[in-house]
């Protein structure tokens, strides 16, 4: 492992402007990922976890003006302010993407083999023949049986799990250094989910890539990730090593999320644990702590100013909660 993180995000804020409204889905978030490491970004829908990863790489819907501030450095190179043409060169080459729904990520009218080879041709500057060979290699890498025949098939002929393996093969085709997986197993069954997670973890280790795993499911984090950032309402609530954050969560929101997962010891027919209330809707930045209206620990001071991320008694874990952090200096 190198000392320099492969991806370093500092104080990233994203403002989205449409004809009618302005929202801030990401509000001053910092994190970093090293080569060979996997970072999980966990949050509910609307928490900003996807926008945070896609906006700096220019992957936003048309008709929306994206304003970025802060710093996003990939291999020491600043991405914010980079012209679109330069960012386009990075997408698929230095950064590979895996999307939630494998069916809409694939071209339905082109053969699997061509779709993988296309990526290799585009980014590795190889001959079409060499690209085809690379496609075969990749299909084998992602654990698909009968690879030669599969390359000639169309996406609709494959099951959901196989399609997701193809999407992974395409993401790997440009030999990326960073893999961004956005809910890669959400559309899959629990049995297939386990297979795909193991595959992702396996290729990430073998190719020594950095991986950002975006998910809403705490269950997929434990086996795959080294570090975790828990997002709530556009901000990071808690971050640190997975072994520490999942085992002894400090932030009331992280605690609530983990506590909400039904456990084997829970009596049959007993009440489900969860957080009261609903997450805030996306809009203007919230003045105090966004969780305050749903939080048991909340004191009046919580609504006054935005709680900073502060190093907890475990120096590897940072928590943004004024009550938990009482008497500690900001990190």
């Amino acid at each position, binding site marked *: 492992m190198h000392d320099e993180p492969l991806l370093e995000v500092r104080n990233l804020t994203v403002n989205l402007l449409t004809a009618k409204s302005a929202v801030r889905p990401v509000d001053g978030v910092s994190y970093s990922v090293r080569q060979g490491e996997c970072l999980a970004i966990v949050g509910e*829908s609307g928490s900003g976890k996807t926008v945070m990863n896609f906006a700096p790489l220019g992957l936003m819907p048309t008709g929306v003006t994206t304003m970025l501030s802060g710093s996003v450095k990939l291999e020491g190179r600043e991405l914010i302010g980079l012209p679109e043409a330069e960012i386009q060169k990075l997408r698929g080459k230095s950064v590979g993407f895996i999307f939630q729904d494998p069916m809409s990520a694939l071209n339905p009218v082109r053969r699997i083999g061509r779709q993988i080879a296309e990526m290799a041709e585009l980014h590795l500057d190889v001959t079409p023949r060499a690209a085809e060979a690379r496609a075969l290699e990749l299909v084998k890498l992602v654990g698909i049986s009968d690879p030669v025949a599969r390359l000639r098939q169309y996406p609709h002929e494959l099951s959901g799990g196989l399609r997701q393996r193809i999407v992974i093969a395409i993401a790997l085709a440009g030999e990326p250094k960073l893999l961004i997986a956005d809910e890669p197993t959400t559309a899959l069954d*629990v049995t297939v*989910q386990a297979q795909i997670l*193991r*595959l992702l973890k396996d290729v990430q280790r073998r190719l020594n890539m950095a991986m950002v795993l975006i998910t809403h499911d705490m269950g997929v*984090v434990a086996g795959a990730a080294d570090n975790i950032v828990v997002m709530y309402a556009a901000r990071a609530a808690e971050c640190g090593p997975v072994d520490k954050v999942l085992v002894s969560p400090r932030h009331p929101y992280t605690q609530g999320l983990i506590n*909400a997962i039904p456990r084997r010891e829970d009596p049959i027919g007993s009440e489900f644990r969860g*957080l009261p209330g609903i997450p805030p809707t996306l809009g203007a930045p919230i003045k105090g702590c966004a969780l305050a209206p749903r939080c048991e620990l909340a004191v009046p001071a919580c609504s006054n100013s935005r709680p900073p991320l502060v190093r907890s008694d475990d120096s590897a874990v940072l928590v943004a909660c004024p009550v938990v952090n009482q008497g500690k200096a900001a990190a």
Partner: protein
Amino acid sequence: MTQAPVLKVEDLQTRFKSVQRGKFVHAVDDVSIELYPGEIVGLVGESGCGKSTLGRTIVGLEKASSGRVLLDGVDLSALSGAALRDSRRALQYVFQDPYSSLNDRQTVGEAIDEALVIAGTRSPEERDRRTKELLDQVGLASAVRDRHTRELSGGQRQRVAIARSLAVNPRVLICDEPVSALDLSIRAQVMNLFLRLQKDLGVACLFIAHDLALVRQAASRVYVMYLGRIVEHGSSKELYDRPSHPYSQMLLASAPEVDPRIEKHRRGPLMIGEVPSPTNPPSGCRFRTRCPLAVDDCAKALPPSRVLSPGHTAACTFAADLHRGNRTALVQQEMSAP
């Protein structure tokens, strides 16, 4: 249970014409289930196993190819016209996605009122009273009544959808993945609503879901479905403590652990591949192509359902051994290609 079942499904089959000429998709194949008043029963299985088709066939959204659906002992297929409509009212469906199951242009009040009109409540005063009562039952503030459904969050929308299905005083709710579209922190609230409705109103609930942990806590009994057939059935306690069909064992073992200390050291068995096509299901036991215990005989005939303890059955040749713990499907496997 000495009570009569409120819903009884007997040897139900639902077949669809396949795109392959002359072939059929056997989505639901000889399924028999029972629901008693006031109980929550889970129905679990992978996508494509036919669990939603079973639910849809029960309420009449799909036509059964054969078999019977009995509501309070009355065969629904023998009814027609007004009699059928009356009976069906007692059977309501809650859909997975509250974003597509509600009309965006209606207010919450209108959406619920519409259900009451269809249910035949003539008097506006009575409908007004019932709307208030329903909003209260599903835990929505009466102020929500004049807001458009599009302004609500997912959890609130699902509550409105539930209020609509309760408008007709149903005896049975078929809930098809009712919380999977909701955020984790909201799911518990809606699950607790189901628990309360079952206790307060005595509504029986068939809870179709793929989240096994959720089903365990909510349901008193569970049916496990694989490729159109029920492979195991038992009380939640029995089924989760002593799963006795290889499929149930592997399904339960594939659920991820949240605690990294457990998850990272778990090298548990992986289910191989995916559900085969229901157009050409494997001969004999449907699960044999993915089963680590399969022997030649499994391909010859459908394994009969074996009673392992009162109320616990599993359709596997080795069910008795699996139940006693003499055998397990959870053997270590290498990650192999599907």
